[in-house]
């Protein structure tokens, strides 16, 4: 017994940290997270600095240098265009990187929007229960039953797609999943004794919700939302591919690939190279997200 106690004392500084910090450090300890993070930071730095440092304009056409293949691939490649050029001679690397910027911008803002909306609705449904819960959850079910992409292309297809409208449409289409997760975690937290304790002390519902429950349940959900950044980036590119994303001439992964499809046989790199970029970015985000998700599961399973 005494041995057991000393063992506990040793681990005390570790145990005392808040849940969010523990998830973070556990995820950070995994090799997958580090790989993902290194790749992601490299890509991010490239996206921020390359167009600016190299001075290459992603919109500048150069008909003479059109359809140049990537480095070492076929004839006519140049160092100036490491990933080749498209049918109008625009630099593929610069275009992909600008696409990456928009993709990240839309992915992150959409995720933030849908997590906030979903978490808020789930919080109310889960905390108050009863009729509030029934109404909110029927709405959620209804929303969930329309495939997100159908909803998105319907709205964007009949109205004009702009960056804010894309963010709003994707964000509003994606909230139900978060509402459900939030509702069930809030429901289980609400039954815990510390909530009852706070009620007996005389705390109001709002106080309990926002000072006790939200700080407890939101971080784990937010960590897992990292995975949804990647998912939203895919949705953004799908919209672009269908012509419902950010409109040309602004390059996005979706519209570059859609364009490149027409030249697939002669210039395969136009459609595939931006995709490789996108896949790399998404994989790095997903590796980080999956490590965070696992760390969360481990800590919640073990705690």
């Amino acid at each position: 017994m005494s041995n057991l106690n000393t063992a506990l004392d040793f681990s005390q500084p570790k145990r005392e940290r808040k849940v969010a910090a523990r998830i973070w450090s556990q995820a950070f300890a995994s090799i997958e997270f580090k790989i993902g993070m290194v790749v992601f930071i490299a890509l991010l730095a490239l996206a921020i600095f390359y167009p600016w440092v190299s001075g290459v304009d992603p919109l500048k056409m150069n008909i003479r240098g059109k359809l140049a293949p990537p480095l070492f691939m076929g004839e006519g490649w140049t160092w100036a265009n490491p990933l080749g050029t498209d049918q109008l001679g625009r630099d593929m690397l610069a275009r992909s990187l600008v696409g990456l910027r928009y993709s990240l911008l839309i992915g992150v803002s959409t995720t933030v929007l849908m997590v906030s909306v979903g978490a808020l609705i789930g919080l109310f449904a889960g905390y108050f229960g009863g009729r509030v819960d029934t109404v909110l959850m029927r709405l959620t079910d209804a929303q969930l039953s329309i495939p997100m992409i159908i909803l998105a292309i319907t709205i964007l297809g009949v109205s004009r797609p702009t960056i804010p409208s894309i963010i709003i449409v994707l964000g509003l289409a994606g909230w139900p999943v978060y509402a459900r997760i939030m509702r069930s975690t809030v429901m289980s937290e609400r039954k815990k004794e510390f909530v009852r304790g706070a009620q007996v002390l005389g705390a109001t519902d709002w106080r309990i919700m926002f000072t006790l429950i939200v700080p407890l349940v939101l971080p784990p959900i937010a960590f897992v939302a990292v995975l949804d950044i990647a998912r939203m980036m895919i949705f953004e590119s799908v919209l672009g591919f269908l012509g419902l994303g950010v409109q040309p001439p602004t390059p996005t992964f979706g519209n570059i690939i859609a364009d490149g499809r027409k030249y697939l046989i002669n210039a395969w790199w136009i459609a595939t190279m931006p995709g490789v970029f996108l896949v790399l970015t998404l994989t790095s985000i997903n590796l980080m997200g999956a490590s965070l998700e696992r760390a969360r599961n481990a800590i919640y399973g073990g705690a």
Partner: protein
Amino acid sequence: MARDDVLAGQILLSVRDLTVQAEEDGKSRTILDRISFDLNPSQILSVIGESGSGKTVLARTLASWLSVPLRVTGGAIHFRGEDLISNPKFAKSLSGREIAYIGGNPAGALDPTMTVGAQLVEKLRAVRPDISKSDARDKAIALLKAVKIPAAERRFYEYPFQYSGGMMQRAMIVDALISDPALLIADNITQPLDVTVAAQILKLLRELNSEFSTAILFICSSLPVACDAADEVMVLHDGRVVERQVPAALVDAPQHSYTKGLIKELPTLWAEGKDESGTVKPDVGQPIMSVHGVAKHYETHGKSGWALVQAVRNVQFDVFRGDNFGIVGESGCGKSSLMRLLTGLERPDAGTILFQGENVGEASPKRLRQLRRKFQLVLQDPYGSLPPQSSIGSILEEPLIIHKIGSRAERRDKARAIMAEVGLPDNFYDRLPTGLSAGQRQRLNVGRAMILEPELLIMDETLSALDQTEQGKLLELFQRLQEEHGFTYIFISHDLTMVRQVCSRIAVMYLGETVEVASNERLFFDPGHPYSRALLSAAPTLEKRRYSPEKCLLEGEPPSPIDLPPGCAFANRCPHAFDRCMAETPKLLSRGDHALAACFLNE
């Protein structure tokens, strides 16, 4: 010499110098230290020890169920002369067949998605493939009957979640006995059960032992239970066997200092000179809280549609200023629902709860919040009751902030003063509660409740998660605080010995009703309700019992609160029940001197 006895068929299990170590971070720690003992066929041997003494590791080692970081590093276990340590394959082939194991968590022991019967058959055919399916089924049903599960044929086809805790433990006994094992290891099997149910299980185990001549290694942490259950008791301390005697000799003349301490520390129920319990004499006059005819039901919906659970049906008692009022009852008796009603977390469907003459059940939310300064609750679960993300200081200051009391500095001083008062070191102020022990957490809970200077403190199973020593210390703290601040306590508990120690007046609840209210002495020496007697007969104690379980308790489960029979709720388990009890519900009647009981025998 043990070898010869084995060959003569005298000894079933012979353990010699068994040593088990745990290896963590390159360091090894000895859990079991050269344990030696013998067990004869059809003998019952209790192994007792506190948590950490290694008794569960011993059970698992014998069942070949050690997992990393635990490892056997020395010694031998001879089962019918074969060594299990040097021949793990043989050991594995015995498990479930010759050596059966029952754990302390019956609720999670079977696959929830398969019927109990199917799993019993599956288990028997896994260890004895020669038995046909229908034979296995017949055997399982016969054994379910033997462990007194009512309607065994029907129960065979039910799922684990349809069994109550006590029934499930019976089913697990069937699961263990179905392969006719020579040795049964029962690891803490009565621990999660209510006392009356545990008493029934113990009785059953002894009957089965004489019927099937299975040797039983009965592992538990409560000395009274161990003595009740076994032919001999072995005491384990710090991984070593310190003593082995027959129960009577152990109690009368313990050899080892650890056993002596253990017996001395055990509270007694009936020993004389115990009436200093209510040191603050209750001021009998105006009650501080008066509960009358309170009822609460909940709606649930299950497979069979909507149903009403009658959690609280008819509760009635008065608590006087300076009282230590106890509410005892087993799980499902409505204690927790009553607690929610008393604290105004929920409102009763009927009846009144008067706190200083004001009806808590009908107070406006705003008034209720004001009233809450005067009555506070200390919760049961030391781990779930504290917000995990707030520091200890801010947990203590939170009630002051809610009620807008004092400036920041004043609140801080007050919190530190309270910490000193409940015995928490001052440097804990900025720490998170995650590192605290269960006892420290309950101190913090008490501190949080009393920072508002209430008059009434409701303790909901506050001590049940603590060990005996910790309980004693907190009870001392409660008493000191009561002397200094004049608190009135309501203890809600399932633990009769604790209630006996501290309470001045006690209400006994059964299935949502108060069946008896009496002073401490009166309840323990002259109970007015058969259920109170049954409860007393089942209470774990080393003393000579005033009430024997055989005479006070019939086989059977408490009825479900969804489907209550007419008449007295206890009638189906009551040895004194007669026709009228089945038809008419008895009322709480005065037996004089503020004592009430709801039984026709008192009329």
